[in-house]
């Protein structure tokens, strides 16, 4: 009974905090993008446009729900819901500080990867159920991309697991507090693993240059083409939450989580700073680069990223065996 209560409280807290953070994250992205393009960005609703996400939400809530002819209604309705659910559920195991963690699973990293892999199902559902060819192609691309980039994602996570000898996310952070951040130590492989993880993360959360599933210049809007109103909003929010949680996980695995540099003032705030910095850098990349073609993406993944990450796993195993023990 107490466990259930704790779950409810933490669950509610995570959802509230995460959704709020994501809303301001969108605002931050828009401001950043505007800055990069010599524009002003949202500045009308509220001070500095800070209430823009609220206005957007209100607009989306009022929109008419449209079902395309021949759409599979059940899947069509279910897909946005599942996208957001999976994205938020990932956050349950993220240790934001030594105490602030929803569920400190012993296999936290496995939970993260499993949910990330599951994400492809609602995306494909959305692509299929829309009864739209652009959405279908977008869904197809999403499946191919997620499966491909899941491999380097898992392998680079495995590097961290081998180094730290634990699959618990907070365990990883504790290891890093004791031995140094994985992105910095051991010098070289750690940072490569971090960059690979980060690239795979970009691909998993469909961000440029890996956003071919919804490449709007080719596929109109990809899987979201036929979605209207809050269902579109959920798909949209799901992606942002995915990116936000992914940034948090990258910060936990490779950047020492809540540990400050040289253990200075460790705590929740460092986790927030790292997450926001990674989140912002995702959008920095997004608003500067052009996008790859789908076959080039697959090539990049299978020809370069996968062998490289296999090599990193082997290195990690050797390091663990000879240096750490």
């Amino acid at each position, binding site marked *: 009974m107490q466990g259930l209560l704790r779950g409810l409280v933490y669950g509610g807290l995570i959802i509230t905090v995460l959704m709020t953070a994501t809303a301001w994250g969108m605002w931050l992205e828009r401001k950043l993008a505007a800055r*990069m*393009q*010599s*524009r002003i960005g949202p500045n009308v609703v509220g001070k500095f446009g800070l209430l823009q996400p609220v206005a957007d939400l209100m607009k989306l809530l009022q929109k008419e729900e449209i079902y395309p002819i021949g759409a599979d209604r059940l899947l069509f309705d279910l897909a946005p819901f599942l996208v957001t659910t999976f994205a938020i559920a990932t956050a349950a195991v993220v240790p934001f500080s030594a105490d602030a963690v929803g569920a400190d699973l012993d296999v936290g990293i496995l939970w993260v990867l499993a949910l990330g892999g599951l994400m492809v199902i609602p995306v494909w559902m959305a692509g299929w159920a829309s009864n739209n*060819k*652009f959405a279908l*192609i977008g869904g*197809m*691309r999403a499946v191919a991309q997620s499966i491909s980039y899941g491999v380097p994602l898992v392998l680079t996570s495995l590097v961290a697991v081998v180094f730290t000898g634990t699959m618990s996310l907070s365990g990883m952070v504790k290891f890093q507090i004791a031995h140094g951040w994985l992105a910095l130590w051991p010098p070289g492989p750690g940072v490569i693993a971090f960059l690979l993880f980060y690239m795979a993360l970009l691909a998993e959360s469909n961000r*440029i*240059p890996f*956003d*071919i599933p919804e*490449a*709007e*210049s*080719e*596929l*109109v809007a990809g899987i979201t083409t036929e979605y209207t109103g809050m269902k579109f909003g959920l798909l949209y929010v799901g992606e942002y939450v995915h990116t936000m949680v992914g940034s948090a996980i990258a910060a936990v695995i490779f950047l020492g989580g809540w540990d400050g540099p040289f253990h200075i003032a460790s705590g929740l705030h460092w986790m927030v700073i790292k997450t926001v910095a990674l989140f912002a850098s995702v959008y920095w990349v*997004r*608003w*500067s*680069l*052009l*996008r*790859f*073609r*789908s*076959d*080039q993406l697959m090539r990049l993944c299978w020809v370069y990223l996968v062998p490289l990450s296999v090599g990193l796993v082997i290195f990690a195993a050797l390091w663990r065996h000879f240096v750490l023990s």
Partner: protein
Amino acid sequence: MNARHPGPTTDRYRLEQMDADADLMVLNFGPQHPSTHGVFRIKLILDGEVVVRAIPYAGYLHRGVEKLLEKLTFAQGVPIVDKNDYVSPMTNEQALVMAFEKLLKIEVPRRARWMRTIFAELQRVASHMLWLGTFALDMGGALGGGSGVFIYTFRERDYILDLFEMVTGGRFHYNTHTIGGNRHDIPAGWDREVFKVLDLIESRLPEYEAMSSNNAIFVARTKGVGVIDKDLALGLGLTGPILRASGVPFDLRRDAPYHAYDELKVNVATATAGDCQARAQVRVAELRESIRLVRDGLAGLPAGGINGGKPIKMPQQFKAMAGQAYVGIDTPRGELGTFVVAGGGDKGTAPYRCKIRAPSLHALSALPWILPGHTVSDVVVILGSLDPIMGEVDR
């Protein structure tokens, strides 16, 4: 596209059959699509994501401009062609006015010819700037890196429109070319503004190149994509940057000089690969060349009148003898030709028939040849590299 002209476009299959075939899918690309540069439709027959056959359909923006030109007198016709190639209105006016001048045998003063050169080259800078932005947009998306380039280049284009506004009062519908000369003379101090804008654009060009044509992803997306070889380009009557990118150094400005191009020497930019990257390289080289031409043109701008003969009070004054004339000029998109036939006699105040040869239409005719074998992503890039303007295609 019909039985009389079989080619790769032959529509042998009915849509329903294609879907029933199950292996192939028909994808209607446009007319409402973010990357078709207006209202253009391509019926793509796909095997997975690879295009098997492409059937272009134009005509969604048909406004009957050629018919209108028959109904209006010679002078009245000039302003309505502004909207044909809506990215390069100056050259539209020039092509029409020059054909009328040839038909009516009217001499244009030297200063007016030089001014037309300057306008045409400024317009080329504006047009290629817009092309660079939209091309990046095709590859980077409106919610990505492409939009950055687009907003920057759109801003540069706006500076040039400001310059045109100073001269003509209009940013789009200039109506500055009259039969026999120009309507508006250059205001005092205009050349200083032009030099300022050109310096600005030239200093920013390397930045845009770094964001687009020198960018690794840009190269990966354009190299070897949409190759138009020399024979195909010549066979389809392609002109302008597309032809020059296929290794044919043909430029009307050099090979059949008009305006002041006999005095201002044009260096023709060419490339040999014939792919999207080559077309991009040619256009960027043309940007620099045009900037140089405007500078030289302004430096050597002769004094004198800008309108031949007496000021014209009534448009009906122009009366053509029965005859015909063709004038082709090199616009940012290629050879824009105007073929005008006059009936003479009572009907001599208006063209009997006015045919506009639009370079974009010819460019689009290459699509059925070059699209098969490429993926849907490449369709957008190839279409963007051809730089079609639908207003000109459909007229």
